Every structure is written in structure tokens, then in C-alpha cells.
């Protein structure tokens, strides 16, 4: 198996792993003492979590603008904007709270020389800011996940507007638009239509929901794949992003739910005793909400879990350096990078599977909601089969089973 992978590709994979290892170099490596806690809190968690900076670690670290809606001490609402967290701390009435303390609530750092020291140690990137006078009402700061979410949106828009334009332009021509890229995307679009929308949404209503399903599928796919690019991050590893997407599915289910669906949801299944209905209705309603909550958490936890595993594997190298010394760290590096490459390939698979799972479950929930029951039609169709026909069907089935059972032993 390994022999079939071309050496060049293997080299490319290893380079990918090494570049990730480089981008995960601990913050304090330069001058401060490296402790286990700083590795776990700043490097591993800091990379997987959202933050107000872009990390191009060996080259640069770009801080992102902070925009805050604040209520000042005299009660006026104002919008304050700063170029970076550093600027916010230096120029505004803000203090820095560094997380990870034992008691949880440490006093904010406000004195200017203490702040300068904390900024030099890059603590401001991993801590949170509090206002010394008045309070922060809402934080509209531009974060890393927002940047990569918008980037994913732009990529999806760019690809599909260009694709759609080509269909429009060549509408009068007899043949379909061609090209590797065009056909590749067409395969995915047709896959979503034929494998996800059509089988799960009954009564030919799939056409109404296909645009939403396609948008969700491609946004999640592109955002997930952006999470695999070195220095970038996955917007879908943020619970807020996946939560909003699950709320969209939930909204569609509520808006387009058929009257049959609502009747069954609110009054229980037909011809059930009243006592059972009293028990079943709350369970159904809780189940409805939990289904969509699980939709959000599944995607979030998968993406977050993947990046945590990668950074934990790479963090192992630095932990070994602290615990057992340099030689152990070097030998761990080989194992770590091997595993990281494996997990990266797994994450590529997971990127597709999670986009598929989110879309197919959305389609399933929407399909359950829009379905209209036709009890009269179904019951009328059944007696037509007749007793003789049913008996013969059963006999055929039994014969088939016998053959199935017998054949393996003879063969």
C-alpha cells in the first residue's frame, strides 16, 4: 500500500506536517521559561479556539481590529474601535484579565508598565479585556473565525457565480459547458440533488429546499477544508457558526412544516390514549429541539476535535522537551509528525463526511416536516393485493431465504 504512494507525494505530506509543527511553536519559546501549562493553555487551546489575531507564526502575527459597543461611566452608549488588542489596551480605559488562574477571577492588569510587560509576553492574545470604567455591552470585534468564515463565503460565491454565468452564457449552445473544474463541481451539485435532497424530501418538494442544502453543503465543505490549510482556521470549529446554521435548518422546519406535522407534534400520534399523548407530546417537542442542537454540536465537535488532536500530537513534542529533555523530544518528533499526517488525511475525509452528514440530516428533518400523510390513499392501495398474491409473495420470500441459507454451505 505504502509502496504505491509516490515518493513526491510522501514528501509533500511530510512538508505539510512539518509546516504545521512550525506554526505550533510555543509562544514563549524565545525568552521565557516554557511550562506545561503555557503549552496547553496558549499553544494547544489557543490555536484551536477563536482569537483576535491571525497567526503566521514563523513570519508574523497580525492582530485584528477590535470594535466594542460600550456604556461609559456616565451612561452613554458609544461604539469604540481600535486597530488591535494592543492598541485597545494602550490607549483605552481597559484592563487585561489573563485566564487560567486558580480562582478564576484575577484582578485585571491596568498599570501601564505591567501592561507593557504583559504585551511583550503576548499575554494579551490569550487573555480577555475588561473596561475599567463603565461596561462593555456587546463585542463586535473581528475574530479569526469571522475572517475565515467570510473567506469561505467569498470562495463559494466566486466559484458558483462563475459556474452559473457559464451556463447562462452558453444557454443557446447545444452542448453543456465543459472543463475539469466545471464538471467536478457539477458532480458535487448533482450528488447533493440526487443523493441528499431527492430521497429525503418527499412529494417533489425537494426543489424548494435544494438551494439551502447546496449552500449549506458547500459552505461547510469549504470552511472545513480551509481548516486544513496551514495558518488558516476552520470557521466551522466555532459553536456560534454551526449554531446559526442549525437555527437556519430549525427555522425552515418550523416555517415549512405541514399541518399534519404540527398536528402530530402538538397532539401526539393519532388513535393513541390521552395519557400516552400527555407523555409523548413534551418528549416530541424536546426531541425536536435536541435534534437541531445535536446538529450544531456534532459539526462543531468534529472540527474542534480534529484540530485539538493535531495540536495535542504536536504539543507532545514540546511537553517531552519539558519533561524528559531534548533527546526524547527529537525522537517524539518523528512519531508525532507521522501521526499528524495520518490525522490530517483523516480530517480531509471528515471534512467531506461532516458536510454530507449536516446536509443529509437537514434534508431528513425538513423532509419529515413537509411530508403530508395520505392515510386514505395508503389504506385503499393495500387490499388490492389480495390474499393469494400475498401468500405467493411470502412463499417466494421464504424460498429466496432458503436458497440464501443453503448456498454458502454448498459453495
Amino acid at each position, binding site marked *: 500500500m505504502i509502496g504505491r504512494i509516490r515518493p513526491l507525494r510522501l514528501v509533500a505530506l511530510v512538508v505539510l506536517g512539518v509546516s504545521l509543527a512550525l506554526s505550533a511553536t510555543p509562544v514563549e519559546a524565545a525568552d521565557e521559561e516554557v511550562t506545561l501549562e503555557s503549552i496547553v493553555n496558549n499553544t494547544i487551546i489557543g490555536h484551536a479556539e477563536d482569537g483576535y489575531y491571525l497567526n503566521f507564526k514563523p513570519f508574523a502575527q497580525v492582530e485584528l481590529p477590535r470594535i466594542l459597543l460600550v456604556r461609559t461611566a456616565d451612561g452613554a452608549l458609544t461604539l469604540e474601535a481600535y486597530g488591535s488588542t494592543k492598541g485597545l489596551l494602550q490607549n483605552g480605559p481597559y484592563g487585561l484579565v489573563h485566564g487560567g488562574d486558580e480562582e478564576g477571577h484575577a484582578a485585571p492588569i491596568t498599570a501601564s508598565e505591567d501592561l507593557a510587560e504583559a504585551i511583550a509576553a503576548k499575554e494579551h492574545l490569550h487573555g480577555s479585556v475588561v473596561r475599567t470604567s463603565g461596561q462593555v455591552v456587546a463585542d463586535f470585534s473581528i475574530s479569526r473565525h469571522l475572517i475565515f468564515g467570510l473567506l469561505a463565503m467569498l470562495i463559494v460565491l466566486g466559484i458558483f457565480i462563475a459556474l452559473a454565468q457559464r451556463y447562462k452564457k452558453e444557454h443557446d449552445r447545444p452542448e453543456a459547458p465543459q472543463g475539469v473544474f466545471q464538471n467536478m463541481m457539477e458532480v458535487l451539485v448533482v450528488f447533493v440533488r440526487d443523493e441528499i435532497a431527492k430521497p429525503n424530501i418527499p412529494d417533489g418538494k425537494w426543489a424548494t429546499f435544494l438551494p439551502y442544502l447546496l449552500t449549506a453543503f458547500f459552505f461547510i465543505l469549504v470552511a472545513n477544508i480551509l481548516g486544513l490549510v496551514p495558518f488558516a482556521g476552520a470557521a466551522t470549529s466555532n459553536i456560534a457558526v454551526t449554531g446559526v446554521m442549525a437555527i437556519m435548518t430549525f427555522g425552515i422546519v418550523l416555517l415549512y412544516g405541514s399541518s399534519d406535522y404540527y398536528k402530530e407534534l402538538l397532539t401526539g400520534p393519532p388513535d393513541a390514549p390521552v395519557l400516552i399523548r400527555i407523555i409523548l407530546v413534551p418528549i416530541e417537542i424536546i426531541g425536536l429541539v435536541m435534534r437541531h442542537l445535536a446538529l450544531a454540536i456534532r459539526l462543531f465537535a468534529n472540527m474542534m476535535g480534529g484540530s485539538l488532536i493535531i495540536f495535542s500530537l504536536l504539543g507532545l513534542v514540546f511537553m517531552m522537551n519539558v519533561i524528559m529533555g531534548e533527546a526524547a523530544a527529537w525522537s517524539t518528533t518523528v512519531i508525532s509528525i507521522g501521526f499528524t499526517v495520518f490525522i490530517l488525511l483523516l480530517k480531509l475525509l471528515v471534512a467531506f463526511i461532516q458536510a454530507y452528514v449536516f446536509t443529509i440530516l437537514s434534508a431528513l428533518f425538513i423532509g419529515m416536516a413537509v411530508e403530508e400523510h395520505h392515510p386514505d390513499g395508503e389504506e385503499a392501495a393495500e387490499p388490492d393485493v389480495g390474499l393469494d398474491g400475498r401468500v405467493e409473495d411470502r412463499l417466494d420470500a421464504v424460498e429466496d431465504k432458503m436458497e*440464501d441459507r443453503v448456498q454458502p454451505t454448498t459453495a
Partner: protein
Amino acid sequence: MDPAALAYLAAGLGAGISAVGAAIGIGRLASSSMDGAARQPEAAGDIRGLMIVSAGLIEGVALFALIICLLLVLFV
């Protein structure tokens, strides 16, 4: 006993037990879908799609447990 130590212990044990549960679930799922695909090779495509969806659901439960373990570790 130190509550933080108990939280770390609970997180470790919880991660392990949820991994066992997910492994049993996915193992059973894989074995029965392979049985199904071997018995009816023409239905293998459908079975694969259903298998991926149910694997996603099982994994979701395990990841719920993982998130709880993470919360235990990070916010003690």
C-alpha cells in the same frame, strides 16, 4: 480530596468510557452493514450512505461526552 484533581480524573475516565461506547456502536454498525453488503451486493451503495449517516449520529453522542470532558478540564 482536591476538587480539581477529581475533575481531571472524571474527565479522563469520561473520555475513556465514551470512547468505549462509541467503539461498540461503530463496531456493531460496521459489522452489520458489511453483513448486509455481503448478502446483497446490489444494495451496497444504499447501505454505505446509511452507514455514514448512522456513524455520524453515533459519533455525535461520543463527541457530546468529549465536550463535557473538555469543559471539566478547562473550567475547573
